[in-house]
């Protein structure tokens, strides 16, 4: 299993998510598709982190603290994305509730209050 395999999976998931975002009209489905896109990005970030060894390790020298931090960046990014995505989901669900209460619909195409 190489980096390319993982990136391929990530790309497929991202494309599925994008398709969902552009085609689904139900806001809940839209939100779920959005989550798929997030997760594709998380997979890609972790994959890069996993398959890129610290610079010092590659040439057999001493691994410095900075090199360790650089190697862990992808993982840290993944944790951040998950946290932000969770917060966003909570917020988005609250918005959807509010939307349903006021307009009795969750169809994205029915909501165009922000047009000119």
């Amino acid at each position, binding site marked *: 299993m190489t980096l390319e395999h993982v990136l391929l999976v990530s790309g497929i998931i991202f494309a599925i998510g994008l398709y969902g*975002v*552009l085609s689904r009209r139900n806001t809940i489905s839209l939100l779920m598709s959005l989550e798929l896109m997030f997760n594709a990005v998380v997979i890609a970030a972790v994959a890069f982190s996993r398959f890129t060894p610290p610079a010092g390790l590659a040439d057999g020298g001493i691994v410095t603290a900075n090199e360790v931090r650089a190697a862990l960046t992808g993982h840290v990014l993944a944790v951040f994305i998950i946290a932000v995505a969770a917060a966003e989901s909570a917020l988005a669900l609250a918005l959807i509730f509010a939307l349903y209460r006021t307009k009795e619909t969750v169809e*994205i195409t029915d*909501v165009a*209050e*922000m*047009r*000119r």
Partner: protein
Amino acid sequence: MFSESLAWLIIALPVAAFLLNGTVVRAFIGTDTRVAGWVTISAVAGSFILSLFALASVASKGAAVHDPHNWLTVQGFDLTFGILLDQLTSIMFVVVSGVSLVVQFYSQQYMHGDKSYTRYYSYMALFTASMLGLVSARNVVQLFVFWELVGVSSYLLIGFWMERPSAAAAAKKAFLMTRFGDFGFLLGILYLYFVNPSYLDIPTLYEAVGAGAIAAGVATWISLGLFMGAIGKSAQFPLHSWLPDAMEGPTSVSALIHSATMVTAGVFLVARFFPLFHASNMMDLVVLIGGVTAVFAASMGLVANDIKRVLAYSTISQLGYMVMALGLGAYAPALFHLFTHAFFKAGLFLGSGSVHHASGTFNMKYMGGLRKNMPWTYWTMVIGSLSLAGIFPFSGFWSKDELLASAFERGSTIGWVALILGLTAALMTAFYMFRAIFLTFHGEYKGGAEAEAEDAKKNNLPMPVGLGHTHRQESPWVMVAPLVVLASLAIVIGFLVNPLFDLGPIKKHSFATFVTERNVNVFTGGHGEEAVDDGHAETSHLPDAVEAGAAPEFSLPTAVISTVLAVGGILLAYSMYITGSVSPAAMGRRLPTVHKLLFRKYYFDELYEDRLVIRVFYARVVRFFAWFDVSWIDNVNVQLSKLTANVGRGLANVQSGQTQTYAAIMAIGVVAALLALLVWGN
């Protein structure tokens, strides 16, 4: 030696009075407090005393040309201010501050009880200061600044009773018409600047003219511009029509600025640039304008019913005399006439104010018989009128006779034209002045202001403005004393100042000698031994300008003719208005066209206001600009804003509110960017 700072102080004292009255007195003491009068009177008195010292200093030690001070430096050009205290300036100093002092004193009573007493005295102080600054300016630009200040303060004073629409209109008219002349003045200054910037300094200009450095053609154009300013300020034909209207101001204002000082500024200007005018080709034009004005204004005075308007026309006419004399090269006689005229004309105006005080009106139709009630006013006004008419031995005789004699001496066509115009004006002057005297003081009393108000009511005419109360008695001494002072001056000043023969310590033609000395000092820098001894200027050291400016020999024929004409005018007035042997009404009927023409002031107001302003200026020029403004200037803006609105409306359609459309566009955009990076990257 009269130091420079003292000369500045002459100007600064009234300025201080203006500021003090305008700020402290008005704000903390009151808008109608007598203190304001005292402040201005003491300041002007100070100026007058200093002016006398200045005159004495110039008389004994010669002209003082003080070094200029740098005021502005613009790209290497220095604009300087300074004091030029020569004979002309020192005489003007005394005339302006002297007449102003008398008038300010008189105004205490005349303006008593006016709700804007303080404002009156601050304006009067400002006016006096501007005039004093004007006559002492060393630089043409400095002169112009004070010239405009004089214009502004006269505007403020003519429109002093601004709640009267007629006063506001008169102030506007005076300001605009004099401004029209100032336009030419400014062009003259600009031309002078382009010839050589250093010529803005008047002594330098004198030297240049004396050395013949300015070509006659150039001098003509510059003089023409300056003369336009003089025409406007001195109400010469064809810019004369503002002055009679300016009588809307308080009478004391008329006495100060429309007889003795402001309107003489134009004559002063020609006198100040006399060498330049003399070097130009337009002296004959100056003669014609002055002579025509003298007759033209006098003829309108023949039929005017308002006593102040009669005096206003006579002022225009006398200013015409002075201008005519300057054009003839009679520099000294012109200034002598300015000098004598200032006193007796101020006296006449103040007298008419006194008459108004008693009868409540200025309309002579409603006066009459006031001689018994106000003997002081009567006699002082008779003296002033005799002087104005040029009767021996009053001051007007001496100065007017010198004018006519210089025209006689000049000979040639222009001299004869000037002489005839001058004599015609002299006849008319005598007639209208005594018509005014007889109508006002002789015959039956015709009811004053009350009768005028009644008549207006009966005939459904608009109520005349400015009617006062009728109390037929002599005015208080505060008003009479100035009249007496000015009348005594009118009696004696003529032969005391400029006698025809040596009069004890006073030398023959001493005034003429004094004023023509000016050029000696200015041109050569020295004084004393080169001064002409009798003003006859046979001395060849003097430039042409001075030779021409000396006093003429007394000429018995012109004196006799002018006296006969003046007496004839008085007798005609007598037979018309006292004995009634010649009926003025019948004469008006016999010559209806002439009477109407004169009464309507030759239709000049109609020509200017109706024809020129409304039909030409408004209907053509202004309408063109209005059209250009609407269809071009405004239209460009309108079209530009329409374009912007349309573009915005088109772009607004992109914002559909459909989230997924936005997302799709964004995704396509990202893909496009990535593809672009793949293809053109690296």
